[in-house]
């Protein structure tokens, strides 16, 4: 379908490569078990090879995509219902596919080192490839139903990988053993965590399904392009007042997958998986799927909003969910002792940013700005978060503990990791001007600030506050891990002869690359953002017929690539970075104030710290309401209704009552002939009289 202008003399291979992007990982997944039978080591190479091939075929789509070409190829699928499967490689999808493909590839390379020697390695590769393939389905599918296949595939893979170490050894748990919140232990085994992730995201999934079905009920199709093509369905839904609910429900899927409030709690326990998995989940696949969903359906709703449909509530929901999540998770990240969990909180919080951006994009009618900002942040976050996770994985690998309190002073031993972590960490903090994180976050600030909506200022303040906290906890993390003295744990290890050393080549290279990229692209970040902005402007305009107002940019009088910069946002962002890093420096790098003493110095701080450490009690409340209470209810029903009322009533009771009446009848049969004859005589009278009635 793409009219390849440059390569028109060649056969059109773009559709094929678009298909291949997601089919290749599945092929790999299929052959890996077979290979694993023969050689376990070989599976890694197969996986990495296929991941590379998939990434390459994604890359081949790039040239076309940068020209805003669109590849749309369909095959019959469920022809009886008129549903087709297809790939839709528009710029959005292609960029995403590349992000996913390449970052996954790097993570796969990293995994060859990280998972070396694990006896279940075949299974690991299988699921990793399954994971990537599913994610690519989400990215490239042209309709909601097929996307849902990938969607659940991702959930399934995350379930399998989070509980990868299914033997539930103590070292694979997360949380602190014995610590209870509201009477419930917050200490989770991998298998538990996997279940939790799968079921909690399932809640989001069913919301998404309801949204899909609502739209399907009116439109009769799941296809993104078909939905765009004829919007009569939207009018019909609006008339019934179902448009906003459907959109919000659809967004519910994103809430679940992206661990947004209120379905955020699974993300932390997901840290039980191997770190490579966490990296994949947080950087490239799972949680990004939610943002991608919003990015995928966003333009459709922008277009509808532009066409006069009242969708503000929908966008407000997105923005606010993003905002709340951003601050909620960021605050918790400040206090958690487990390195991966800190990163996980950070992920949720960052995703909140993206959601916020997408939401305000809809609110502001400056669709492209917010949209671009959110998506750009997705890309930059993918890079630095993958890098951070992999680095954290190296730390875990080396130190053998997930607690930051067990680390400390590692900067001398793991120089490369130290450096890369700083680089990526700066990206997360949004260090001014040199990191991608800065530019993308700044774009979000700008978009939020400029949205001109009632909610603009509250959201903006939340965003800035979150940025302060983000900087603080990132500094804290780096400070706790690399600065200060060696922890008792490390001293103990060294006594036993284990020396702390740098991670192996296959491990540090991938996160090195990503860390370098974070800085590298950061340097040209503004123009990169501008490029994406341009691309998306064209994309939205071309495909969705959304006219972008260029008012704000032209007023600045700055060069076009600087047009997106908003001074207020810039200042806020700089200030946030400054405040955050200084606080972090005081507590964790310079170590002028002992954080523990600081917290304990004041009942107020103590209470806050405890609340944050207890995850705002949200996790416990969720468990009480949705696990403990239903189970309790079910047990009650089981004990008193099923076993007594029904079982006793229907099975035993029926039996007994029949037996009882049998006894009565038998009693009447006394064996005395006179009685019988008496009954006979009475019977005559009875029958005769009965006939008269």
């Amino acid at each position, binding site marked *: 379908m793409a009219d390849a202008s440059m390569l028109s003399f060649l056969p059109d291979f773009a559709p094929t490569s678009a298909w291949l992007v997601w089919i290749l990982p599945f092929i790999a997944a299929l052959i890996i078990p077979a290979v694993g039978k023969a050689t376990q080591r070989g599976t890694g190479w197969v996986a990495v090879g296929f991941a590379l091939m998939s990434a390459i075929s994604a890359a081949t789509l790039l040239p076309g995509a940068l020209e805003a070409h669109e590849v749309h190829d369909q095959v019959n699928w469920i022809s009886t219902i008129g549903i087709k499967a297809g790939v839709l490689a528009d710029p959005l999808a292609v960029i995403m596919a590349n992000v996913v493909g390449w970052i996954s590839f790097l993570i796969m390379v990293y995994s060859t080192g990280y998972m070396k020697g694990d006896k279940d390695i075949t299974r690991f590769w299988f699921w990793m490839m399954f994971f990537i393939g599913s994610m690519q389905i989400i990215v490239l599918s042209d309709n909601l139903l097929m996307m849902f296949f990938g969607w659940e595939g991702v959930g399934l893979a995350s379930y399998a990988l989070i509980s990868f170490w299914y033997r539930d050894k103590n070292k694979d748990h997360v949380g602190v053993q014995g610590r209870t919140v509201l009477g419930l232990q917050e200490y989770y085994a991998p298998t538990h965590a996997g279940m939790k992730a799968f079921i909690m995201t399932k809640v989001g999934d069913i919301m998404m399904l309801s949204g899909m079905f609502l739209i399907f009920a009116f439109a009769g199709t799941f296809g993104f392009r078909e939905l765009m093509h004829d919007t009569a369905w939207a009018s019909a839904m609006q008339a019934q007042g179902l448009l906003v609910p459907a959109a919000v429900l659809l967004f519910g899927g994103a809430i679940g997958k992206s661990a947004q409030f209120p379905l955020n709690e699974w993300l932390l326990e997901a840290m039980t998986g191997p770190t490579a998995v966490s990296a994949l989940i947080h950087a490239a696949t799972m949680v990004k799927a939610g943002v991608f969903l919003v990015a995928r359906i966003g333009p459709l709703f922008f277009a509808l909003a532009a066409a006069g449909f009242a969708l503000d509530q929908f966008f407000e929901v997105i923005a606010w969910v993003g905002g709340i999540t951003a601050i909620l998770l960021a605050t918790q990240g400040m206090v958690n002792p487990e390195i991966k969990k800190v990163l996980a909180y950070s992920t949720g919080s960052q995703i909140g940013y993206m959601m916020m951006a997408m939401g305000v994009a809809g609110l502001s009618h400056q669709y492209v700005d917010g949209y671009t900002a959110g998506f750009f942040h997705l890309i930059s976050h993918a890079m630095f978060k993958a890098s951070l996770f992999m680095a954290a994985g190296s730390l875990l690998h080396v130190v053998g503990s997930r607690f930051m309190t067990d680390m400390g002073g590692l900067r001398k031993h793991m120089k490369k990791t130290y450096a890369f972590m700083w680089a990526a960490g700066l990206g997360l903090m949004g260090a001014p001007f040199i990191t991608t994180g800065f530019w993308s976050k700044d774009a979000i600030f700008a978009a939020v600030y400029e949205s001109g909506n009632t909610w603009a200022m509250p959201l903006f303040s939340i965003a800035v506050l979150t940025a302060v906290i983000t900087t603080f906890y990132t500094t804290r993390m780096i400070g706790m891990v690399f600065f200060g003295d060696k922890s008792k744990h490390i001293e103990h290890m060294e006594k036993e002869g284990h020396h702390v050393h740098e991670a192996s080549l296959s491990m540090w290279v991938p996160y090195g690359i990503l860390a370098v990229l974070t800085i590298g692209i950061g340097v040209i970040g503004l123009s990169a953002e501008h490029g994406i902005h341009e691309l998306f402007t064209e994309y939205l305009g071309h495909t969705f017929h959304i006219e972008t107002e260029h008012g704000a940019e032209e007023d600045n009088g700055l060069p076009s690539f600087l047009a997106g910069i908003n001074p207020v946002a810039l200042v806020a962002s700089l200030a946030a970075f400054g405040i955050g890093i200084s606080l972090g420096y005081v507590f964790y790098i310079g170590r002028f104030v002992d954080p523990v003493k600081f917290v304990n110095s004041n009942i107020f701080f103590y209470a806050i710290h405890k609340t944050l450490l207890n995850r705002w009690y949200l996790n416990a409340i969720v468990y009480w309401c949705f696990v403990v209470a239903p189970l309790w209810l079910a047990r009650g029903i089981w004990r008193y209704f099923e076993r007594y009322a029904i079982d006793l009533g229907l099975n035993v009771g029926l039996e007994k009552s*029949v*037996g009882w*009446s*049998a*006894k009565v*009848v*038998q009693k009447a*049969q006394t*064996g005395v*002939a006179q*009685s*019988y*004859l008496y*009954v*006979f005589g*009475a*019977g*005559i009278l*009875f*029958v*005769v009289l*009965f*006939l*008269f009635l």
Partner: protein
Amino acid sequence: MIEITSTPIILIAILGTVGMILPVMSVVRKEKGSNSFYAAIAFGALIASIGYVAYEVVSGQLPPAAVFSADVLANDSFSGLFAIAMLIVAIITTAGSFNFMRGQAHPPVYYSLILLSTIGMVLVAYSTDLVMLFVAWELMSIPTYVLAGFMKKNPSSNEAALKYFLFGALSSAIIIYGISIVYGLTGSTNIGEVMTGLANLDPSMMPLALLAVGMFIAGFGFKMGLVPFHMWLPDTYEGAPPTITALLAAGTKKAGFAAALRVIIMGTIALQLDWTFALGVIAVMTMTVGNIAAIMQKNISRMLAYSSIGHAGYILIGLAVAPFTSLGIQGSLFHVLNHSVMKGAAFIAIAGIVTTIGITNIDKLKGLGRKMPITSLGLVISLLALAGVPPTAGFWSKLLLFGSALETGLPAWAGWLAIAGVLNSALSLAYYGWIIRKMYFEGETEKKIKEPKAIIGVMIFSIIFLVGIGVYPDPIIEFTKNAVPILDNALIISK
């Protein structure tokens, strides 16, 4: 006048002659223990009779059951059907007695009484005159009083016979009473004339007619085992020799239905009464009491006795809806035929069990499936057929019966008959299943023992009959359709 070659006369001739000759022969021969000899003669006579009837049925010489003739006996499909059913029962009983009577006293008398009683049973169905019917009824009953008490040394046999006799005597007196009233109202004893007489009855005489119907229900209901006239039945069935119980349960009981169909139904159709509701109530009571009482029984004969009370209730469904649909009587006839075979076979199986291992307690039937495989199989098939499990013959007749109660155009209560019937037959599975469970699922170490050949024969016959009809019921359904009496239009209640 009656032609000398009509079926009933031939049957009287064959069976009566043989029946009378047997005791004489015993006096002449003065031999002991030659049970098989007499049995064979009786058996031969019965086979000849059934052959004759079957020949007439198959060759289509019997007219469809129709208007009542002016004679005392009619020769139509209705009576043909009953004749076949009764003769099958008699044959089964005789065959079962080959072994059962071995070593017992007075075999010639025994067989002669069976033959005489058979004449009675058959002629009840052939009668079209109340006097004839009554005489045949008594000919059927009196020998069975003796037969029930035939085990003179056995107290329970005697007790059973006494109870049976008292009830029988009382009920025949009641029947005469009923007949006397009907006679008084119409001036005739011929059923055909009675019908017309009743149809044109002076309204002021209606209470008397109702009294007569009530008396008939009580009198014939005793034999059928309708509640509340059923109480003798379990005691007698338990106490009487099992072969005779087969005769009672499968044969005389069906004669009760033949009489009821001839007299109660036809008469009351003519009376245009709303009497069917009473029959419906009795039907429900009968099947419920029968099935419920059967559940806790320990003695297999007694259990089957209660089960046959239950079945009387099912058959009565067909009678209760008879004025509204011909399907009802068709179902009743079909079930009568099936029930004769199933119950007959079941009791003969028990006779076989009693003669070989002397057990009637259900709990002691453990492992019978291994001890006596063919007998057990026959018993199981009979029980399943009684429970109405497809594909056995019992299923189809129950189907017709319950179906008839659900036909459109029936009074509102008819549907409840079907519901009651269906629930009862589900309930009945519980105790049939209980026996099967004991025979097959428990006691796993028993060794096989020799089964009496005659009983094996009966079992094989019943299995073939029940399953064969179960698989391909059409001929019998058609036959029963023919056998449904076609009434004068004037007599049928307009729907």
